[in-house]
């Protein structure tokens, strides 16, 4: 019998700890499939973040070096500068990349570091229990914005990808979502392109992926995906944000 579907080589045979309906499991798989397809498993080095996905190193079967909260693109810079012929990627949540790590991200992009950032945006702090994130959308209730995010008090949602649109060193930035098969397929193409940009030595690349967090949003998995498509994309429209390839 012909095998038509199997675990990517770049994923360890481990059971994901992520909550049901969380996008991380899907995004992990997409990244691993891309690593396999590009044949770069043996020269790939991943930098897992703090937050829900810190345990990414239990799943990706590539060399992994943990970064302090928010500093992944700086750690990745150090690795890449020592080993320019390796493929280095960070895997970061919105709290990591768009709050505490904003400076590191902006400057890595602006320097045109030859690294790829996978930016998982679920509009909330996941691991710490559902507090407001920089990407929490206006009106969205979290444990630290219980009545909903009020811009006058809490500021506006941060659109990091759009901010990086002007970063001269960034070669490719696209925002995707993993809410339905069509979006998932498209997200994989974007991830693949982001890695290819690095392989072609063109500059910094980043894929932002809108990802459901049913647990902290207190929704069913189906409703969470629907909420991404209907509410989150109003603030974070799916599109290519910068492409100078």
């Amino acid at each position, binding site marked *: 019998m012909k095998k038509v579907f199997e675990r990517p080589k770049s994923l360890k045979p481990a059971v994901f700890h992520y909550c049901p309906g969380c996008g991380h499991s899907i995004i992990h798989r997409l990244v691993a499939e891309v690593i396999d397809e590009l044949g770069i*498993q043996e020269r790939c*080095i991943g930098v897992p973040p703090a937050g829900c996905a810190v345990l990414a190193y239990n799943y*990706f079967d590539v060399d*992994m070096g943990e970064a302090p909260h928010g500093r992944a693109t700086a750690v990745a810079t150090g690795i890449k500068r*020592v080993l320019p012929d390796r493929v280095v990627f960070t895997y970061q949540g919105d709290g990591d990349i768009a709050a505490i790590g904003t400076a590191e991200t902006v400057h890595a992009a602006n320097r045109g570091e030859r690294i790829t950032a996978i930016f998982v945006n679920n509009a909330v702090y996941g691991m710490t229990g559902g507090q407001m994130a920089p990407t929490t959308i206006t009106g969205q209730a979290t444990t630290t914005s219980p009545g909903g995010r009020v811009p006058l008090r809490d500021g506006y949602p941060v659109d990091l990808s759009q901010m990086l649109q002007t970063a001269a060193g960034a070669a490719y930035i696209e925002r995707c979502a993993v809410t339905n098969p069509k979006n998932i397929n498209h997200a994989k193409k974007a991830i693949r392109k982001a890695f290819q940009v690095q392989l072609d030595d063109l500059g910094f690349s980043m894929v932002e992926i809108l990802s459901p967090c049913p647990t902290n949003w207190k929704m069913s998995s189906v409703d969470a995906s629907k909420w991404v498509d209907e509410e989150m994309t109003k603030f974070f429209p799916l599109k290519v944000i910068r492409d100078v390839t």
Partner: protein
Amino acid sequence: MRGSHVVGEAAIRAGCRYYFGYPITPQNELPEYMATQFAAMPDATFVQAESELASINMVIGASMAGGRVMTSSSSPGISLKQEGISYLAAMELPGVIVNMMRGGPGLGNIAPSQSDYFQATRGGGHGDYRTLVLGPASGQELADLTRRAFELADEYLTPVMLLGDGMMGQMMEPVEFPEPIDPKSLPRKPWILDGARGRKSRLIRSLLLDPRIEEEHNWKLYRKYEAITDREQRSESYLTEDAQLVVVAYGTAARIAKGAVNRLRGNGLKVGLFRPISLWPFPFQALKSLSQWVRGFVVFEMSTGQMVEDVRLSLEGKRPTHFYGRPGGIVPSPQEVAHVLSGHYFRLDGKPGS
């Protein structure tokens, strides 16, 4: 050669090919030297990061990837680097950090100071760890201890700090450098992240969620720090064989104290100098052995008194231990220190110098 340039040249000769930093006075001559020299070296990388935080995290990445790597800063900048230093210690990554201290706390000033001793020797960042700290006191020692810092970092897989001050960075002295090391000739590190080609994938992390594993890791680090404490205590004793009173000082303060000791010896006073070279581990064994005959100690620091605690711990209350300090960036003269020492000398119990 200028002190900061000595550190840079010694680092390059030690095989350092990666420097990440952020400018802060009074140590800018060091990153400038690295940028200039590295520009002509195809195998070397200099990155001026956007912050001290970014630069120490670039050090983490470069160290993971197996590079001999250095960063440098001065007091307020080192405070920002402490997060990364804690992670380096936790992940057992080698790296050299230079701190040319200035007056503090806060923004303080840019004058030479020694007020970061606690921060340097007690860990500084969070968690159960120690940083190996070396305190050079001359141009030659800047060269020698920079080389040694890289060796110690690789041997013990731990961050090593070179603790100088603004004056030392600016001081011009003749220096003899050791032969340069080709980084390619250094032993291969079996733990680095360079892509899992033909081997299992590797992981370098500090998150140990299971408290039993975290405890085990902390005991492992503790045993390493014990071994460092046993093996790496370094100090210099100057005119201590017959001394009644010994001044304990490190770095720039030790240079001044030596001048004071020479003056007092000229007047027939039996005074000596004990100079810790390794600040952590503190050379408590050598200092304690002096207390067999030395009747009193004076600790002189360019701070309000930090190392004095280590001196008192070493002497275990066996001898009177006084403190003299000038905080805030004031560098006292040898005359001033000699005056203080002679005061204590003539107050020693009984008749001194007999």
